[in-house]
């Protein structure tokens, strides 16, 4: 009896481990493969007769050198960072007051408006990019990073307003009411009492906005054709793939360097994003 129970437990653990190994292999493999490819010599990469999972020649830094010295990759990283910072600023300025107002409005209006704003997040760039291409042209912003700074808040503001509304709702009204009895105005209570305790929420919004900016592709590829104005997610697939020669080592390095830091930071906040995604279906 005890042996049977033990066997069952061992089988359960093995099954559990098996499931995890399968999924980690499937989901993380492309990134492992980027890592291997980045440091392999070109000759090694192109030798089909040898085991591709091993370093058949000594690892090399040549691909990274090419990436940073002979391409505009570094510029693309800087562009992404600059657009990210600007979009974060715009998003905060617009979404913070809106989120707070939606959380504190009395009556059904707050909830209804909140959901309406959330739903605009569902309108994808692939519907809007065609009219935008002409609008951006009319504004003379083609090939300018300002086009991205202008348009990206259209998808960061709705979702971040929704997230912030949730955060502010979780803060008890009594705190502000107490502060207001002590003589602060509503705005004063918001700035001096609510904002300090909602810093975690603001940080979440900052991270989320930044990752959305880094991931965006459709608008970037539509508005920008000058290589020096690309962001990372657009520059690598359009510029480094062009032509018949693929510099796989450099490309994989480019993908890896841009992906991993974002993934690390995002990972810290993922539970908060999920809380926003689940639209209150989980309490």
């Amino acid at each position, binding site marked *: 009896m005890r042996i049977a129970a033990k066997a069952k437990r061992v089988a359960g653990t093995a099954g559990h481990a098996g499931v995890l190994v399968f999924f980690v292999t499937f989901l993380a493999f492309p*990134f492992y493969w980027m890592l291997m490819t980045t440091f392999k010599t070109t000759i090694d990469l192109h030798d*089909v007769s040898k085991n591709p999972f091993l370093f058949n020649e000594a690892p090399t830094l040549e691909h990274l050198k090419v990436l940073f010295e002979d391409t505009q990759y570094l510029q693309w990283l800087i562009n992404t960072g600059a657009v990210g910072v600007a979009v974060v600023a715009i998003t905060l300025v617009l979404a913070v007051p809106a989120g707070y107002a*939606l959380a504190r409005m009395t009556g059904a209006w707050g909830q209804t408006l909140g959901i309406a704003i959330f739903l605009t997040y569902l309108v994808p760039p692939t*519907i809007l990019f065609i009219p935008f291409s002409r609008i951006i042209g009319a504004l003379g912003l083609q090939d300018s990073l300002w086009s991205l700074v202008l348009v990206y808040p259209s998808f960061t*503001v709705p979702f971040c*307003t929704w997230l912030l509304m949730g955060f502010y709702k979780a803060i008890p009204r009594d705190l502000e009411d107490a502060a207001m009895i002590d003589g602060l105005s509503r705005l004063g209570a918001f700035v001096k009492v609510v904002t300090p305790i909602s810093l975690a929420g603001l940080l979440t919004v900052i991270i989320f906005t930044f990752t959305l900016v880094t991931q965006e592709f459709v608008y970037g590829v539509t508005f920008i054709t000058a290589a020096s104005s690309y962001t990372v997610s657009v520059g690598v697939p359009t510029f480094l793939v062009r032509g018949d020669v693929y510099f796989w080592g450099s490309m994989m390095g480019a993908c890896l360097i841009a992906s991993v830091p974002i993934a690390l930071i995002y*990972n810290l906040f993922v539970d908060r994003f999920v*809380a926003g*995604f689940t639209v209150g279906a989980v309490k």
Partner: protein
Amino acid sequence: MATATAAKTQVSYRPRLADNERWLWRLMLAPAILYIVLLVGFPFLLSLYYSLSDVTVGSREMNFVGLKTFARIIENRTFWTALRNTLVITIVTQIFALFFANVLAMALSTDFRGKWFVRFLILLPWVAPISLGAIGWLWIYDSIYSVINWTGQALRILGPNDWPIWLGQPNLAMASIIIVQVWRIVPLATVIILAGLTSIPQDIHDAAQVDGAGFWRRLLQITFPLLLPITLVAVLFGVIFTFTDLIVVFVLTRGGPYDTTQVLASWAFFTGIQGGDLAGGAAVSLFLFPVLTAVAIVFLILARRAEVT
């Protein structure tokens, strides 16, 4: 008690301020709403108008042509291919993603050592920019150096002369695209379902166990029914992200070989932006809208339910 005092203070100390607050809320909301109206609402209306016009990239003026543009795009066989592919990719992806995400969420709901690292690895496809992840796959699917083919031959799954060209044959290319979409959606679906799993109170399981319900019975009669709303959320987001996606097809196949893997979003891009036919592109992209409306309605129903309970 606390709310009662709060209400009393509002009445007795600041009758005027309560009135002012309505204006404060409007003032705080106005910038965000204005931005959304100008940068989502206006372009959307413009898109509707474009689809009824003959506008091109270079044209200075545009004429209203009614439904002629729609008539023109549905005459094109590639449009129907794109529509079919979009539906096939979306549906097949959701089926696989949902199955995988449930299994994976179940495995992640127990505690084990190194869990945070496993979770980090599992989340990578969702968190990393998809255009870069897709390039990783482009290399994995490479026609000469595909690591899948090498491994297949090494394990004798593929014969010595079998060397599938993943992105070069229509059916294989569709399968390759679906694999990448599943790869990208599974992490998001998993964390959403995991949030639902952890929200089921342990005492329900304990009580059922005391009453003699086994693992499968609990799974089928407790876990799945309680998970239904959250699973729906995972499916809705999955549908949106696969249905409207341009990136995976753009990076992997550019719609090829011979336009057999075009989807609505990529066909809109190649027609409207690269082909310069803005009217046609707008019309194609509007075919995304009915499904999005349906998704939005389900979200509304879910949100209302959450409000009531």
